[in-house]
């Protein structure tokens, strides 16, 4: 409730702010692709089913031609001692959170790009190197990227990683939802290898239904929250868990799309170039008047 009124207020202030700068917000056509196909795909992650075998980490590296140790080495559970984040060498990682009671299992959470429906990176990118594809994937184009890292500033999940130690052609690295594999009709590498079926790949619309059915069928197993259903306007990857997502280090986010009020402010200031041109004309008139007044004074 509090959040609701706060959001309304923010919106209002943005409007006031925009109109003070001389303008009314209007939507311009977005340059980069942001297709929200009704049949876009997604993945439902059931954290209560994940056993932390980390086979998905291995499969991901193989699918993206990243250097990796042999699959057996992934049995080593000592990596769970530290919280890890995806980076330029691992596009997905699994973390473990200790059980609350003795008889329970620890919780494992796989992290990767959430593939937002209204991605902040797509909105922020200076050259439009990011795009939301029909299939649901948010992908990055190496041909455009200039390495400004504004996507990393913008991402609410802090996912894009940068190759800081490369002098030439450093890349922004993040999960691409196996864009190449899914194009060929294959499953994303992590989904394909998962032995516990903790990852369900399917149409996002149906996944939302499945998630709510699961919660209804096993109310003692899940809390009543599908993370990603509404967060930042909805994400392609969604999570089920048996405890509050904040305890699993998911950021607490509102329902508004991640780009937030920036696009409104931006298009307000630029509404079809009317405000800048108007300011230009106004200054021109002021300059002309002042110059002429000077002349008349001198003439007298």
């Amino acid at each position: 409730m509090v959040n609701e009124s706060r959001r309304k207020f923010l919106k209002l202030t943005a409007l006031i702010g925009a109109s003070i700068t001389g303008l009314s917000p209007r939507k311009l056509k977005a340059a980069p692709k942001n297709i929200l196909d009704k049949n876009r795909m997604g993945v439902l992650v059931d954290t209560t089913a994940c056993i932390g075998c980390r086979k998905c980490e291995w499969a991901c590296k193989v699918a993206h031609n990243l250097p990796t140790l042999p699959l057996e080495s992934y049995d080593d559970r000592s990596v769970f001692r530290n919280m890890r984040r995806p980076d330029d060498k691992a596009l997905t990682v699994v973390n473990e959170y200790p059980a609350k009671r003795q008889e329970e299992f620890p919780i494992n959470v796989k992290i990767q790009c959430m593939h937002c429906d209204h991605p902040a990176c797509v909105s922020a990118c200076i050259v439009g190197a990011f795009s939301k594809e029909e299939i649901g994937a948010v992908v990055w184009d190496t041909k455009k990227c200039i390495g400004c890292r504004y996507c990393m500033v913008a991402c609410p999940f802090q996912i894009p990683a940068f190759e800081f130690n490369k002098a030439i052609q450093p890349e922004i690295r993040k999960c691409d939802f196996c864009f190449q594999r899914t194009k060929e009709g294959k499953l994303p590498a992590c989904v394909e290898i998962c032995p516990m079926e903790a990852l369900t790949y399917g149409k996002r619309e149906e996944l939302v239904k499945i998630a709510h059915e699961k919660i209804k069928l096993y109310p003692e197993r899940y809390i009543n929250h599908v993370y990603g259903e509404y967060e930042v306007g909805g994400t392609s990857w969604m999570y089920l868990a048996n405890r509050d997502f904040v305890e699993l280090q998911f950021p607490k986010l509102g329902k508004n799309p991640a780009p937030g009020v920036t696009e409104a402010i931006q298009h307000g200031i630029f509404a079809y170039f009317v405000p800048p041109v108007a300011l230009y004309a106004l200054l021109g008139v002021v300059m002309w008047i002042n110059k002429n007044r000077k002349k008349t004074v001198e003439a007298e």
Partner: protein
Amino acid sequence: MENFMKPAPISKKFFTPGVIILTGFAVIGLIIVLIRLLFGLGAVTNLSNQYPWGIWIGIDVAAGVALAAGGFTTAALGHIMHKEEYHVVVRPALLTAMLGYTFVALSVALDLGRYYYIWHPLIMWNGNSVLFEVGMCVMIYLFVLYIEFLPIVTERFIGRVNLPGFLKVFNNPVDKFLRLLDRTLNKVMFIFIIAGVVLSCLHQSSLGTLMVIAGPKMHPLWQTPILPLLFLLSAISVGFPMVIFESLITSKSFGLKPELKVLSNLGSMVAPMLGIYLSFKIGDMVIRKTFVYLNEINIESILFAIEVVVGIIIPLRIFLSPKLIKSPVGLFIGSALVIFGVLLNRVNNFIVAYNPPYKFTPYFPSIGEIGVTLGFIALEVLLFRAFVMIFPIVSVPQYITPQTKFSVRGA
């Protein structure tokens, strides 16, 4: 309109002890730049996947743009409001803006992972991106600043073109070209002057919108939808203090008498602007009820308090005092505090307020980052000194000026 005061190149020894120290800083900075170019950003910066932007963006770019605001504010006052008495400060402010923006562009290029693709935004557009707008505006404004500076170059060389060796045959054509350029520029300059002010208003404000997209990652003391307005107001308020500050230092350094009357008049305009900025800043805080965060004593609340008290309220008091703005010391301290306040505000917005959700090591600039920032500032000061010695920028009393008049001007 010939005035008692007239811009002229200053003839003094270039190298002084201070200059040699600055040269040292500049050389160190350039060496670090070379290491960054050879081994990547990771080699010299403390940037990480959690903290993608550091002081190269926060200070060199964001604060650099704000502190170059003297260029468009004096252009608006001198040319658009047509207040001729302020013409003596227009040229130094223009030079500062030109050098400032040049270094902003260099800093951006240095910070880009793929600096050699810096031209991409020219052909790959994203109208939704705030950074795209800032980038385009800064690029065009830099071009406008160079055009605005051209008449100073033509004034310096018309009638005095002296090319070495066999190039001598071109002396006459070059002189003719310069005269033509000067005449053309004279007629169309108003287009560029207005454009400069419009472009400045646009990108000074949009620089504030940049961090709005970071949403909950920004500390609520700074995260507000009116950030663009606050950025614009603070840029406008820091414009004249920057001009005053620089003018006082220049006259001190070259042993000239400060233009106290003009500077005091400029100073009298600072208080209203600072007042408006302060009222919006406080008003925003009250409306969003963010003052609750000032109850917690942490680095954010302390720096916010310093920014407002030392950077706005104290200088506001100084500039409100008719006595203080008539004294060089009062003007100097007041201006320095405003500059400090805006610099801190940009650092706060881009670095202190930015709280990524997964912090492994909190960000603090590395020696390499600080070295480059200091090196660039040193280089800027050195270039400023060199420019005022080569070009007619600083106004000096006529009797010690070398003759700079030529037939085209003053007609």
